[in-house]
């Protein structure tokens, strides 16, 4: 059958299509858990139930007692961006002592974006990050994303990459190993808190962490920032974390990292903010790297803290133009 000119053009049209590889990767990440139909369905369901119960007993400790009830625990939760997840933070209480330093793993939390350990050190100390490691029951290591410490209280918050499969669905038994710490003390001459020399020792702390499941949020509508189209990917929220992919079409990561001259360091040409219902900025991170570049522009993964349910604002600023979109977070 011959095609007329319009049909021929439609058949051979050059399309700007989404990247199948990226779409596939995201779909495979979002797909539901594996489910098999078996002729042994009834026995399998029974065995599965028993296995699940054992897994829950193994991985998930007694429901997280309110860490906020622990003296100073509320501050620790707020500092770690876990104020909205107080009921989902696993209270651990594991203690390790070595070389005169006592380290307590107070609590732990994990969702699809981050794994957070809440520690107390006495005397106040910070770990030697180069020799520190977090592993799960399969021996996998998790890189540290960030950390903060309070020299006055000895509070230490360590945030690591999210747990890998299948920990991300079942929970995990993790082990934190420290081989060296630094005394963290106030230097009156420098008028600042400083790390002292390393102190060798062995501190091994274990925790079983349940996973806080995220819910999918309505995707905000697209918008224009000058001549640039901004669209949004799927947004999700756990009790403590809100994530959303922001697509800036037609601009590269390098262009987004430029600064507007202001006589000093310059102002960033691009900013991404997550603002909570009370107006506080709760952006935790967003990254721009060569890996952010897509065939159509740049995708930026925004991570922010969820403290309360309500309307959160995603604010995209580019070249002085602002675009606000509301995320309704349950």
């Amino acid at each position, binding site marked *: 059958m011959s095609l*007329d*000119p*319009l*049909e021929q*053009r*439609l*058949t051979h*049209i*050059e*399309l*700007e*299509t*989404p*990247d*199948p*590889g*990226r*779409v*596939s990767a*995201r*779909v*495979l990440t*979002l*797909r*539901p858990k*594996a*489910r*098999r*139909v078996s002729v042994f369905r009834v026995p399998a369901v029974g065995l599965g139930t028993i296995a699940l119960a054992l897994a829950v007993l193994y991985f998930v400790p007694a429901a997280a007692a309110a860490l906020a009830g622990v003296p100073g625990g509320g501050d620790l939760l707020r500092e770690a961006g876990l104020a909205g997840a107080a009921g989902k933070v696993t209270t651990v209480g594991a203690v390790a002592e070595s070389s005169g330093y006592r380290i307590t793993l107070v609590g732990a939390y994990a969702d699809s974006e981050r794994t957070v350990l809440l520690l107390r050190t006495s005397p106040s100390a910070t770990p030697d990050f180069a020799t520190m490691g977090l592993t799960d029951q399969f021996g996998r290591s998790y890189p540290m994303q960030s950390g903060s410490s309070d020299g006055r209280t000895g509070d230490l918050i360590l945030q690591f990459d999210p747990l890998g499969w299948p920990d991300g669905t079942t929970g995990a038994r993790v082990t934190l190993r420290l081989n060296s710490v630094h005394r963290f003390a106030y230097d009156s001459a420098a008028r600042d808190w400083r790390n002292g020399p390393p102190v060798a020792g062995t501190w091994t702390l274990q925790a079983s962490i349940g996973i806080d499941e995220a819910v999918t949020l309505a*995707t905000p*509508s*697209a918008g224009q920032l000058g001549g640039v*189209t901004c*669209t*949004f*990917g*799927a947004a999700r929220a756990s009790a403590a974390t809100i994530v959303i992919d922001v*697509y800036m*079409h037609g601009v590269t990561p390098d262009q987004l990292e430029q600064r507007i001259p202001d006589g000093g360091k310059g102002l960033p040409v691009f900013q991404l903010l997550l603002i909570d219902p009370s107006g506080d900025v709760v952006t935790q991170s967003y990254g721009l790297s060569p890996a952010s570049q897509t065939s*159509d522009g740049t995708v930026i993964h925004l991570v922010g803290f969820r403290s309360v349910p309500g309307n959160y604002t995603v604010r995209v600023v580019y070249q002085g133009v602002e675009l606000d979109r509301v995320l309704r977070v349950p």
Partner: protein
Amino acid sequence: MEAVLSAGQTQPVTLTAEELCRRYSASVCRFAAIVAPNTGEAEDLAQDALLRAIRAIDSYDPRRGTPEAWLWRIVVNASRDAARRRQRMGWLIDRIGLITPRETDSVETLALEKLRDADLVAHLRRLPERDRALLALRYGLGLDTGEAGQAVGLSADSAGKAIRRALARLRARLEVSFREP
């Protein structure tokens, strides 16, 4: 989560989610690029369609048709739902209902010669949702009228007629744009 696919194939093939993505993600993305109003939404549609297919993979029955027919029904339904969502949100402001379909080959030929692919896609994206889906299935994915019809719930004859009407509407749009630059 997997399905055994045998229709139209000499050897039964077990289709896993990974295999489904590997085989069909490029076609799904191409379909989405034609029917969605912009690239961002095309990506959302492609993702939604593939995710639906993966979730429904256990429900595929080879006795009821080819895996492609099963998949395209899911993809078309995903695009319909996306279009309804857009309508609810007031995104669709452009309709073609007032334009009388007319075929003017000479004008069309002239218009086509001057038209860039991006402009043709822009006109295509302003067609009604079902027209876009049919043209995407027929020309974007290379399905015959029977296969395209199966995906949208039409017989081969009806699909053929509907595709011709969609082409006529697209021609009318091109003609208008050519005469009123």
